[in-house]
C-alpha cells in the first residue's frame, strides 16, 4: 500500500508546487524597500526647475510616489485612475517623471490633467535606481514616518487602490496618531 501512497503523495505535492508556480508573474520582483525608510531625494520640480522637490518635506503624512514618463504606455493607461484618486484628496500624489523630456512631460499634464501635488524631474534616472524602479508605472506608498509601506508595479487601478492602498493609509494614520 505504502508503495503507491508515497509516490502519489509526492506527485500531488509536485503538482501543487507547479500549479502555484503557474499563477505567479515572473516579471514581478518584490521590492526590498518595503518596511524600510524611503530613499531620500531632492530634485528640480518639473514645472519650475528653481523649485526643488524634497522627500524630507513630505514627512509627517502618508504620501504616494508615482513613477511615470510620457514614453510609458501603462502610464497613459492609469492616468485617469490617478486623476480620480487625486480628486479623493486622501493623500498627496507625488510624481517622479522618469527619464523624460521636460516639454513633453509638461504638455502631457496640460493635455490629460495633472493628478500630482508636485512632480519631481529625474532626468538622469538616479533617484529611480535608488527606489529600485525597473519599469514604469510603479506606485509606492510611504507612511508618515517615511517608511515604504507598499509598492504596486503596473498601471494603477481603482481596485488596487481600494484594496491595497487605502487600508494601509488608514492604518499608518492610526499608528502615527497613537504615538503622538
Amino acid at each position, binding site marked *: 500500500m505504502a508503495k503507491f501512497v508515497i509516490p502519489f503523495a509526492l506527485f500531488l505535492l509536485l503538482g501543487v508546487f507547479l500549479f502555484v508556480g503557474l499563477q505567479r508573474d*515572473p*516579471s514581478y*520582483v*518584490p*521590492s*526590498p*524597500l518595503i518596511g524600510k525608510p524611503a530613499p531620500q531625494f531632492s530634485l528640480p520640480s518639473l514645472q519650475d526647475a528653481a523649485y526643488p522637490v524634497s522627500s524630507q518635506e513630505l514627512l509627517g503624512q502618508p504620501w504616494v510616489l508615482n513613477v511615470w514618463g510620457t514614453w510609458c504606455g501603462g502610464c497613459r493607461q492609469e492616468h485617469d485612475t490617478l486623476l480620480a484618486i487625486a480628486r479623493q484628496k486622501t493623500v498627496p500624489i507625488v510624481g517622479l517623471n522618469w*527619464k523624460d523630456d521636460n516639454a513633453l512631460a509638461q504638455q502631457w499634464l496640460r493635455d490629460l490633467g495633472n493628478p500630482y501635488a508636485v512632480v519631481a524631474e529625474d532626468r*538622469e*534616472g*538616479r533617484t*529611480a*535606481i*535608488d*527606489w*529600485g524602479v*525597473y*519599469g514604469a508605472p510603479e506606485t509606492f506608498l510611504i507612511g508618515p514616518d517615511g517608511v515604504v509601506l507598499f509598492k504596486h508595479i503596473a498601471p494603477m487601478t481603482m481596485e488596487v487602490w481600494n484594496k491595497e492602498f487605502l487600508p494601509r493609509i488608514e492604518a499608518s494614520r492610526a499608528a502615527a496618531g497613537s504615538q503622538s
Partner: protein
Amino acid sequence: MLRASLVATLLMLGATAHAIDAQDAFDDPVLQERYENINRELRCLVCQNQTIADSNATLAQDLRREVRDMIAAGQTDAQIREFMIERYGDFVLYRPRMTAGNLLLWAAPALLLLIGAIVLVRVVRRRAQETDLDADGPEAGQS
C-alpha cells in the same frame, strides 16, 4: 570552405565577446575588466534573462553608468553588489547568495541524497534479512 566557416565562426565569437558600450568605460584595463565582470553578474530587471552587460535597455545603461561611477569612486565589488541588492533585491544577482529564505533550496541536493541513502540502506537491510531467513530458516532471527 572549412577555412571560410572557421573565419565566420571566429568573427561571430568576436561579436559576442565585445562589450556593449560604444567605447570602454575605463582606460585602465584592470578597472575595465572589473567593470565588465560586475556587469555580467547583474540582472537587467526589464529584460530578465539578460545581464546588464548584454542589454541595451535604458535601465541597463543607467545601471552600467552607476557601476562605472562607483568603480571610479573607489568602491569595492562587494559594495557595488550591496548597492544593487539594497535597491533591487537578491534577484538582481545572477549568482544567488545563500540566505535564510533559500537555505532549503541550497540544502536540497544534500537532503535528497541523504533521503536516498536512508531508503537504500533500509531496502538493502530488509532484502538481506529476507535472504537470511530463506537460507537459514528460523534460527537466523535468534542470533
